[in-house]
């Protein structure tokens, strides 16, 4: 029986190639997107699921109350790590990490530089107790007990000591250069984690190395008020102790330690291991749950569109198969058997789509490689994917096939055989459904188009706005942290000697970037101070010229620490009557009185999502970390860059030189928005494609249904334009209803998104209209082409066949 079903299904598919093509194309696109998103989800949730007792492992997070705004982050004050297990009950184990950034590794025996890495951390032995590993050499009990010892992973051992056995590496030494130089003896080698993990560290220097009072202060681990995201604290709770119990116990502990500090309101809470990958991990590969959820919605919408398409076309074509239903019923087929037959036909299509869809996954992966996690790969034969192959087609078959098969199998045989199906009078559920499904498809297409157009419009707007400074011909490089004032100055001097360079400046941050340093300032009024929040930049006096920031009054400064520059917004906030009035005024900043010597124009030091803040320029030489260079106009930029890199390497022989254009940093401002736009754009194209295919199939069907009517009208004297108009009218109404439905969801989403920008366009309603008109045109084109062919047909021939 099933063989018979599949046979007839196969022949039906072969016979109606257009229908098969549309179905398979539509469903396979939906399927491959769902498959990819499914795998992305599996990947995102696969991190660190393999540690024993993983549900009892937590990272301690700090939560600070900034005047009502709760800001949480994953660092903890150093003293908390010392006392947590003695003061909080229910902690079985604790692990303290102090993560390092861009640490240089050197082999002291040969002075061979192994390069910089982010995988170095200070760690205590507790870390290996909470996250146990296989030890290839060394004693897990006491490997990290003594200062100046290090445990390394197998992968880096092979890099540092190629060809050596783990046992031979024990006792060898490694030098780690950060702001400090640490020479450590290898006391253990552990295996790398094979499965996906956010614990990316490969070099574990004993925590006792930084346990001296002097080191503690240097690393900021000495006080409760010093918060540092490098200082990480993991705990494993005793079995039976809940997260809530521990979170509660943090309250009194925090109160005790912060009670004499009025202005700080700090608390702690536990972050489950399972959340790491979505919050804050160590190599910036977090996937936000919002983005994942967005993807899930888009995947479901695309799949829904493809499914609707299928339902729509199948029910429309059902009449063509009514005869078969009639015959089968007269031969003794019962409804259940017919439903099963049509479902098996659907299943065949779904399986075909699945094969095509899986093949499409790789294409999608290449297209979207920049949006996917770097290490993300699809394992087509993994257990969960095999399950997907089996269950998803069944689910999809049920979703797509049930309604058409119910319609088909419900036909009364004696009428089906006569071809009387459409009741011309009254209400037809089938036609009603079809119209509604079409409207849904068009609505989502229109909504997607509106979203993409408006996003694009706003992104164009913000990227084309004047920033208030001149970013052309400005290049910058990052300098190693605290690399010494003399060395930085000498690099700057070397740069200035180049004829290509018109000016060079050292600063703590770029003129415009994602970084932000805020503080407060006091304006003396009579005997008190008026205080307000400001943004601070640590720059030298060449900064303003190098970045082309207009100076409105005063001088660009003399590199003196008791002089400051401010921007116009600052002047307004402070209540000075004019820029000139501000010159020479004294303000209290960072506990000291400073003199304003210059006023600059306002410029955007952050994205246009944010307002320009009152800004104060100060100078703090040791903390310079950026060298910006303004090149002469008309330079060969690639050549200039090469030259700058060469000079940099001469001054910093162990660093990798990488001069970059200021634009590249600023391009990151709207990366997330561009990402959303591109993903939506892709979804939009698919939605249009699928809906158009659906319309194509549907209109070809309905028009062939109306061929007789068209012929009779032609005989009675209707012209071709009249016939086109008659057929198109119905579709115009469909698109109008779809448009009405699409407007609100699109508006709602866009209003939210636009409100995130301090500088934004007014809601561009003309783009709404444009989207509607665009879809109407596509629709009329498809229907028009079909009806034009139909209108051309010879009425004598059509009517003779009746």
């Amino acid at each position: 029986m099933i063989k018979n079903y599949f046979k007839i299904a196969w022949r039906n598919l072969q016979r109606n190639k257009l229908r098969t093509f549309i179905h398979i194309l539509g469903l396979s696109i939906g399927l491959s997107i769902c498959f990819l998103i499914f795998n992305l989800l599996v990947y995102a949730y696969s991190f660190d699921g393999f540690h024993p007792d993983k549900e009892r492992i937590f990272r301690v997070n700090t939560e600070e109350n900034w005047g009502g705004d709760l800001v949480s982050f994953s660092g903890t004050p150093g003293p908390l790590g010392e006392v947590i297990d003695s003061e909080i009950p229910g902690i079985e184990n604790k692990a303290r990490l102090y993560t390092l950034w861009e640490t240089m590794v050197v082999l002291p025996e040969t002075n061979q530089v192994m390069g910089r890495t982010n995988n170095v951390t200070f760690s205590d032995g507790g870390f290996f107790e909470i996250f146990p590993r296989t030890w290839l050499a060394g004693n897990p009990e006491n490997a990290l007990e003594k200062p100046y010892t290090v445990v390394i992973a197998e992968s880096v051992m092979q890099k540092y000591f190629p060809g050596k056995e783990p046992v031979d590496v024990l006792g060898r030494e490694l030098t780690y250069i950060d702001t400090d130089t640490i020479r450590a003896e290898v006391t253990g080698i552990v295996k790398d984690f094979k499965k996906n993990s956010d614990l990316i560290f490969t070099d574990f220097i004993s925590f006792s190395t930084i346990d001296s009072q002097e080191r503690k202060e240097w690393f900021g681990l000495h006080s409760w008020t010093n918060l540092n995201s490098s200082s990480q604290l993991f705990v494993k709770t005793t079995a039976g102790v809940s997260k809530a119990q521990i979170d509660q116990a943090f309250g009194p502990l925090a109160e005790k330690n912060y009670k004499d500090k009025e202005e700080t309101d700090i608390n702690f809470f536990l972050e489950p291991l399972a959340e790491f990958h979505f919050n804050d991990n160590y190599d910036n590969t977090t996937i936000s749950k919002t983005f994942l959820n967005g993807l899930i919605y888009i995947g479901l919408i695309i799949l829904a569109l493809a499914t609707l398409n299928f339902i729509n076309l199948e029910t429309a074509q059902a009449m063509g198969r009514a005869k078969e239903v009639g015959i089968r019923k007269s031969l003794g087929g019962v409804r259940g058997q017919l439903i099963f037959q049509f479902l098996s036909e659907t299943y065949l299509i779904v399986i075909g789509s699945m094969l095509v869809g899986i093949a499409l996954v790789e294409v999608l992966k290449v297209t979207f490689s920049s949006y996917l996690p770097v290490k993300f790969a699809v394992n087509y034969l993994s257990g969960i994917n095999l399950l997907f192959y089996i269950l998803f087609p069944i689910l999809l078959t049920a979703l797509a096939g049930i309604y058409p098969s119910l319609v088909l199998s419900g036909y009364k045989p004696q009428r089906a055989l006569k071809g009387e199906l459409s009741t011309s009078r009254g209400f037809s559920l089938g036609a009603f459904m079809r119209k509604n499904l079409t409207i849904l498809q068009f609505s989502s297409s229109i909504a997607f188009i509106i979203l993409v157009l408006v996003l694009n419009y706003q992104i164009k707007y913000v990227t084309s706005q004047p920033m208030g400074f001149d970013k052309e011909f400005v290049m910058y490089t990052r300098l190693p942290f605290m690399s010494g004032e003399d060395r930085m100055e000498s690099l700057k001097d070397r740069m200035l000697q180049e004829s290509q360079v018109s000016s060079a400046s050292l600063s703590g941050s770029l003129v415009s970037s994602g970084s932000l340093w805020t503080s407060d300032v006091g304006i003396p009024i009579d005997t008190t101070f008026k205080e307000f929040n400001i943004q601070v930049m640590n720059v030298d006096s060449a900064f303003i010229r190098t970045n082309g920031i207009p100076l409105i009054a005063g001088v660009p400064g003399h590199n003196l620490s008791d002089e400051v520059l401010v921007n116009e917004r600052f002047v307004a906030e402070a209540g000075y009557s004019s820029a000139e009035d501000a010159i020479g005024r004294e303000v209290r900043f960072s506990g000291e009185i400073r003199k304003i010597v210059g006023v600059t124009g306002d410029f955007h030091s952050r994205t246009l999502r944010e307002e320009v803040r009152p800004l104060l320029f100060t100078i703090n030489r040791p903390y310079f970390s950026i060298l910006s260079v303004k090149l002469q106009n008309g330079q060969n930029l690639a050549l200039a860059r090469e030259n700058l890199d060469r000079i940099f390497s001469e001054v910093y022989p162990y660093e990798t030189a990488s001069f970059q254009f200021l634009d590249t940093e600023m391009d990151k401002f709207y990366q997330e928005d561009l990402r959303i736009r591109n993903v939506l754009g892709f979804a939009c194209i698919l939605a249009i494609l699928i809906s158009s295919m659906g319309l194509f199939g549907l209109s070809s069907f309905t028009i062939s249904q109306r061929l007789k009517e068209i012929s009779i009208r032609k005989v009675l004297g209707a012209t071709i334009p009249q016939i086109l108009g008659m057929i198109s009218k119905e579709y115009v109404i469909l698109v109008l209803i779809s448009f009405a439905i699409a407007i609100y969801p699109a508006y709602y989403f866009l209003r939210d998104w636009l409100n995130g920008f301090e500088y934004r366009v007014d809601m561009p309603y003309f783009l709404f209209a444009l989207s509607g008109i665009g879809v109407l045109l596509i629709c009329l084109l498809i229907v028009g082409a079909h009806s034009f062919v139909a209108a051309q047909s010879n009425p004598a021939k059509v009517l003779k066949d009746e």
Partner: protein
Amino acid sequence: MIQLKEIDKFIESRFQRIFILKGINLTIKEGEFLTLMGPSGAGKSTLLNILGLLDEDYEGEYFFGERNIRKMRERDLSNLHKSEFGYIFQAYHLIDELTVYENIETPLLYRKVSSNERKSIIADLLDRFNMVAKKDLFPAQLSGGQQQLVGIARAIAGRPRVLLADEPTGNLHSGQAKEIMEIFQELHKEGTTIIQATHARENADYGTRLINLLDGRIESDEAI
């Protein structure tokens, strides 16, 4: 075997009922070869559909043997339908996507006949109608007469006791029509009850009883 009592079939229009069948009383005995005649619109096909359980939308009583069709459950009805009736249509109504062999096989599949038995039944039928060489052809590749032969083979494959034929020769020329009628006669001799609707008087001569319908009523009922 079959007994109809006061069968009415009508269409409800806005102002009046339009009767397609009115007050039909009819008894058909097992082994009869009955012909329904009458002009277009007399109600021949409608009556045939009611007899064949394809139409349930009528009033009156219908007994098949001892059983009242109107009071049977859906499942029993379906089983009765499968085991007792075979249908032959004017337009053949073969399934275009299936071959001759598969078309004949379809009712057997619905009757859950085992694979071996199916093969032997179909082989016998193909042999009987000289269609062995054509078993893998599709309906579109056959002439009208051949298609109707397949239709007959399919109708009798399940060995029904009643064969219903609606204008079986309506689309055929006289030579083919004769052939089909002779097969009917043969089946009748083998004991099958046959009810046919036709326009052609000469087809009635193959049967044993002739009923004339006019405007939904029985005009005459005579033995031949």
